[in-house]
C-alpha cells in the first residue's frame, strides 16, 4: 500500500494514528468532527424537546441524561442550560472550527498549492492530537458530578465564575476552560502551519492570484484565528485567576447566597470585550472556509469560472478585516458607552457590502452555466440561500437601535443559526461530497446525497424561519420553559413545530452518516478526477502516497477557473496545462 518515499516506512501507528501526513490528519479531523457533531446535535434535540413539551417525562432523557440530570425523565432546569452551553460550544468550536477548517485546510492546502505536505507535519500531528484531547476533556465534563458548564457558550462571568450561581460553574466550568485552552493551542498550531505552508510551499507557477479560492479562504481564516484566538486564551486565563486565585478581573460587588464576596473593582464588561474580540471573528473563522469551499464547488459544477475572482479575494480580506472591529455589536446593551454603540453599528453594517458582493458573484457564476447538480453543488447553492436569508436579518441586529428589543431573543438564535450554523454546515457537507473521492478513492451515493440535501434544506428553513417571529414576539432565549408567561402561550404550537422539524432534519442526517461510512468501504471506486476539475488535487494519484505526487511536483501555468474556456476541446483546462500559443490569461 504505502508508497515508500525514500524517507521512512509507515507502520499502522504512524499511518493511521500518529500520522504526520496531512491527508490522514484531515480524515482524523473529519471523523472526530462528525462524531462531535452527533453529540452536539443530539444535545440540541434534547433541549428542543424540553421547550416544545416543557417538563414532560421522556424515555430518551432517562436513557441519555440519567436519573441525576433528568429525575423521572424530566430534564432539570440547570441541565437545560448545560445542554444549551455544550451544544453551542461543540458546534461552534469542535464541529465548525476544527471539523470544517481542520479537515479541509489540511486536505486541500498542500494538495491545491502543489506541496508534498504541511510545512511542519509534526506540528500538524500535534495540532490534531491536542484537538482530540480537548474533545475528550469536553465530553468528560458532561459526566461531572455537579454537571457540565452551564453559563452559555459565551461563559459570561460572574455566572461562569461562581459555583454559588449555578452548579455547572464548578468542576464542569473548570473542565470547559481546560478543554478550550487545549483547543486554542491546537487551533494556533494548525493556523500557523496553514499560513506558513501557503506562503512558502506553493509549487512552481502557483502565484497568489492563481490560488483556488478555497486556499485563499483557509489562509485568511488562519490569519484571523492567529489574531483572535490568543485573546480568548487570555480571557480564559483571567477567568481562571478569578475563579481559583481570588483575583477580581471580572468581578465586583457581589452578594450571593446571603454573603458578600471579596471581589472588588473588576468588570464583567471587560470579559465581554475580550470574549467577543475572538467571538465575532470566530463567526468568520467558521464561515469563510465554507464560503471558500462553495466558491470552488460552484465554479466546478457550473463549468464556469467563478465570477469576479479578484473581487472574491478582496471581499474575503475585507470581511476578515472588518470582522476584527465589530465585536461590540454583541454588547450594544451591555452598559458600555452608547458612543461605542454608534461606532460598532457603523463597522458592522459595512460587512454587508463584501457579503453582498459575494452573494451576487455566486449568483452570477450560475448564470449561463452548465450546472452539474451533484450533491456537493446542491449544498453549495443551499449555502448561498441560507447565507442570504440569515445575513439579511443581520442588518437588524447590527443596528444598535433595533438590537435593543431583539437582543438575546429567538430572533438572534434564528439569525446566527442560518447565517453561520446552517451555512457553514452546508459548506461542510458540500466539501465532504465534493472531496470524498479525493479522500477515500470512492464515490458517495448521489441519490442518498439528494435525499439528504432536500430534507435538510426544508427542515432548516422549517426550524429557523418561524423562529424569527417568536423572537419578535419578545421571547427570550435560554428559557427552560415559557409556561410562566401567559403572554407566550400563543407561541407554544410554533415551538412544537420547530422541534418537529428539528427532529426530522436530524434524523435525516443518518442518511448522510450511512452514506459516508458505507461508501468509505463499499462505495464505487472513484475515477481520478470525477468532477472534471482544474485544480491540482485531482492530478495526484488516489492511493495514499506520503508526498502526494510520485514524481516531480506539478507546475502551474494558469489560474484555477478555466472552465469552458473558448479554444479548448474540453470544458475544463487543468492548471497544469501550459498556455497555448497566443492564449491570454483572461483574468487580470
Amino acid at each position: 500500500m504505502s508508497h515508500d518515499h525514500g524517507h521512512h516506512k509507515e507502520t499502522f501507528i504512524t499511518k493511521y494514528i500518529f500520522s504526520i501526513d496531512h491527508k490522514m490528519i484531515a480524515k482524523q479531523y473529519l471523523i472526530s468532527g462528525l462524531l462531535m457533531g452527533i453529540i452536539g446535535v443530539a444535545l440540541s434535540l434534547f433541549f428542543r424537546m424540553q421547550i416544545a413539551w416543557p417538563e414532560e417525562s421522556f424515555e430518551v432523557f432517562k436513557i441519555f441524561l440519567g436519573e441525576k440530570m433528568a429525575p423521572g425523565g424530566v430534564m432539570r432546569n440547570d441541565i437545560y442550560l448545560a445542554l444549551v452551553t455544550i451544544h453551542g460550544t461543540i458546534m461552534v468550536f469542535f464541529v465548525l472550527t476544527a471539523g470544517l477548517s481542520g479537515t479541509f485546510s489540511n486536505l486541500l492546502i498542500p494538495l491545491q498549492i502543489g506541496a508534498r505536505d504541511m510545512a511542519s507535519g509534526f506540528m500538524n500531528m500535534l495540532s490534531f492530537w491536542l484537538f482530540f484531547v480537548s474533545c475528550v476533556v469536553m465530553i468528560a465534563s458532561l459526566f461531572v458530578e455537579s454537571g457540565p458548564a452551564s453559563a452559555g457558550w459565551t461563559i459570561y462571568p460572574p455566572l461562569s465564575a461562581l459555583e454559588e450561581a449555578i452548579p455547572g460553574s464548578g468542576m464542569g466550568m473548570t473542565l470547559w476552560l481546560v478543554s478550550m485552552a487545549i483547543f486554542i493551542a491546537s487551533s494556533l498550531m494548525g493556523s500557523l502551519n496553514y499560513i506558513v505552508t501557503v506562503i512558502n510551499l506553493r509549487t512552481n507557477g502557483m502565484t497568489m492570484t492563481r490560488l483556488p479560492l478555497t486556499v485563499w479562504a483557509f489562509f485568511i481564516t488562519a490569519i484571523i484565528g492567529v489574531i483572535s484566538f490568543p485573546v480568548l486564551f487570555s480571557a480564559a486565563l483571567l477567568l481562571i485567576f478569578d475563579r481559583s486565585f481570588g483575583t477580581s478581573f471580572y468581578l465586583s460587588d457581589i452578594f450571593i447566597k446571603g454573603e458578600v464576596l471579596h471581589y472588588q473593582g473588576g468588570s464583567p464588561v471587560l470579559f465581554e470585550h475580550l470574549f467577543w474580540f475572538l467571538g465575532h471573528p470566530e463567526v468568520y473563522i467558521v464561515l469563510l472556509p465554507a464560503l471558500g469551499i462553495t466558491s470552488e464547488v460552484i465554479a466546478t459544477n457550473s463549468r464556469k469560472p467563478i465570477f469576479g475572482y479578484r473581487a472574491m479575494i478582496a471581499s474575503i480580506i475585507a470581511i476578515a478585516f472588518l470582522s476584527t472591529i465589530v465585536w461590540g455589536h454583541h454588547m450594544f446593551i451591555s452598559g458600555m458607552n452608547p458612543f461605542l454603540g454608534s461606532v460598532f453599528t457603523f463597522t458592522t453594517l459595512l460587512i454587508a457590502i463584501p457579503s453582498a458582493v459575494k452573494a451576487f458573484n455566486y449568483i452570477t457564476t450560475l448564470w449561463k452555466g452548465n450546472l452539474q447538480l451533484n450533491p456537493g453543488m446542491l449544498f453549495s447553492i443551499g449555502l448561498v440561500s441560507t447565507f442570504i436569508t440569515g445575513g439579511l436579518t443581520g442588518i437588524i441586529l447590527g443596528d444598535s437601535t433595533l438590537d435593543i428589543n431583539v437582543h438575546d431573543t429567538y430572533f438572534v438564535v434564528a439569525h446566527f443559526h442560518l447565517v453561520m450554523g446552517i451555512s457553514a454546515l452546508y459548506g461542510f457537507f458540500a466539501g465532504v461530497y465534493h472531496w470524498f473521492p479525493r479522500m477515500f478513492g470512492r464515490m458517495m451515493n448521489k441519490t442518498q446525497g439528494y435525499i439528504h440535501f432536500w430534507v435538510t434544506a426544508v427542515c432548516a428553513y422549517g426550524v429557523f424561519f418561524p423562529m424569527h417571529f417568536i423572537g419578535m414576539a419578545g421571547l427570550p432565549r435560554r428559557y427552560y420553559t415559557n409556561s410562566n408567561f401567559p403572554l407566550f402561550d400563543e407561541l407554544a404550537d410554533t415551538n412544537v413545530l420547530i422541534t418537529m422539524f428539528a427532529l426530522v432534519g436530524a434524523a435525516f442526517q443518518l442518511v448522510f452518516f450511512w452514506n459516508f461510512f458505507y461508501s468509505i468501504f463499499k462505495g464505487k471506486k472513484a475515477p481520478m478526477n470525477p468532477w472534471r476539475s482544474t485544480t491540482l488535487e485531482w492530478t495526484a494519484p488516489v492511493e495514499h502516497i506520503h508526498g502526494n505526487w510520485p514524481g516531480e511536483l506539478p507546475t502551474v501555468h494558469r489560474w484555477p477557473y478555466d472552465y469552458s474556456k473558448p479554444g479548448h476541446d474540453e470544458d475544463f483546462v487543468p492548471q497544469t496545462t501550459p498556455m497555448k500559443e497566443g492564449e491570454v490569461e483572461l483574468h487580470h
Partner: protein
Amino acid sequence: MNGLLILLIIVLLGIAAWQLSKIYSLTQIGTKRDDSGIANDRDNNINGYLMFAFVAFIYIVTIISFVKCGSFVLDTPASEHGKDYDNLMNISFVIIFIVQTFTQFLLHYFAFKYRGKEGQKALYFADNNKLEAIWTIIPVIVLAVLILYGLYTWNQIMYVDEDEEVINIELYAKQFGWEARYSGEDNTLGKANVRYIKDVNTLGVDMADAASQDDKVVAEIHLPVGKKIHFRMRSQDVLHSAYMPHFRAQMNCVPGMVTEFAFVPTITTADMRATDMMMKKVDGINKIRAKKSQKLIAEGKPALEPYTFDYLLLCNKICGASHYNMQLKIIVESEADYKKWLASQKTLSAVIKEANAPKVDPATTPDATNVVVDSTKTLAQVTAKK
C-alpha cells in the same frame, strides 16, 4: 412513552428515506444503471426542477409564517421612542424582504434554468467591473441610509438630557427576582452597595446618605403616563438584563456598575388592554389556556387562571437555573393614580425602623460582611480587611 413514539417516528422516517431512494433508483431503470455517483442529465433535471420548487417553498413558508405568526410580533409600542423604533424596524424589513425575494428567486431560478445538459457549453464569463460596481454601490447607498437613520434614533434613545425633568427609578436584579427603588421626594437615589445589604435593606442602600432617607423599595413598578422615566439598573450577583419588550427597552444589569435606560411610557395599562390588537391577542391566549385547563382538570390538576394583559419586566440574560422565571409587573397609569400609589408606599428608612424597633436581637450586630465601602471608591479597605 413520548420518547418511544419519537424513536418510532425516526425509525419510520428512516424507512421512508430508504424506500424513497429505492423508488428513485427504480425510475432510473430503462436508462442504463448509473452508480457513478456523478450527476447525469436526469439528476440535473430533477434537481433543477426541485430548485425551482424550492424558491416557491421559501415564498410559501414566508407567507404562511406571516399569516400564522404575524400576530405574534410585538405591536403598538408603549413608549415614545418605540414609534421611531418600529418605524426603523419596518423600513429595514421592507428592504430585507425586497432583497430576499429578489435574490432567492435569481439564485434558484438560475439553478433551474441553467441545469446541465449533455453538450451544452457554459459561457466563459469571468469578470465585469461594471456589474460589480453596481452591486457594491447599491448596498453602500442603502446601508448609508439605514446607518444614518439608525444612529440618529440611537442617539435620541440613549442620551438622557441632564436638564430634562425625569423620574429616577432603580431596577435591582438578583437570582431570581426584581426589586425597584423609587427616589422619593428629592428625586435622587441614595448611594448603594451590596456591602450595605442587611435584613430588610435588601438592596444595600447606604442609609447614612441623606438622599436615601426618602427612597422607597417596591415589588411592583408603577409609572405615570407621559413622563420620562430614567431607570438605573444594578445587579447583586450575576449579569441580568432588564427587558421591557412592550416599551422597546432593554439594558443589562451588571454587578459592580450602574447602567441606565430612559423612556417615556405613552399608553396606560388600561388603554393598552382596550386596544383591538390586544383584545384579540388576549382572547386567543385565553382560548389556548382554556383548552389546556380542560386537560389539566381531567388530570385532576388545578385549572390555569385566565390571562389579562400587563406590561412586564423580564430577565433576558442567562443568569442561572431559574432564569426563565424572573418577572415583574409594570403598571402604567395616570399621574394622579401614580402619585396616590407612591404615597401609599413606605420609605425604606421607615421600613428599617419598623423592622428594628420591636425586637432587640444581639445577633444582628454588625458583622464583618457589612464593612462600609462605596463601590466607586478605593479597594484599600477591602484589601486591608483581608
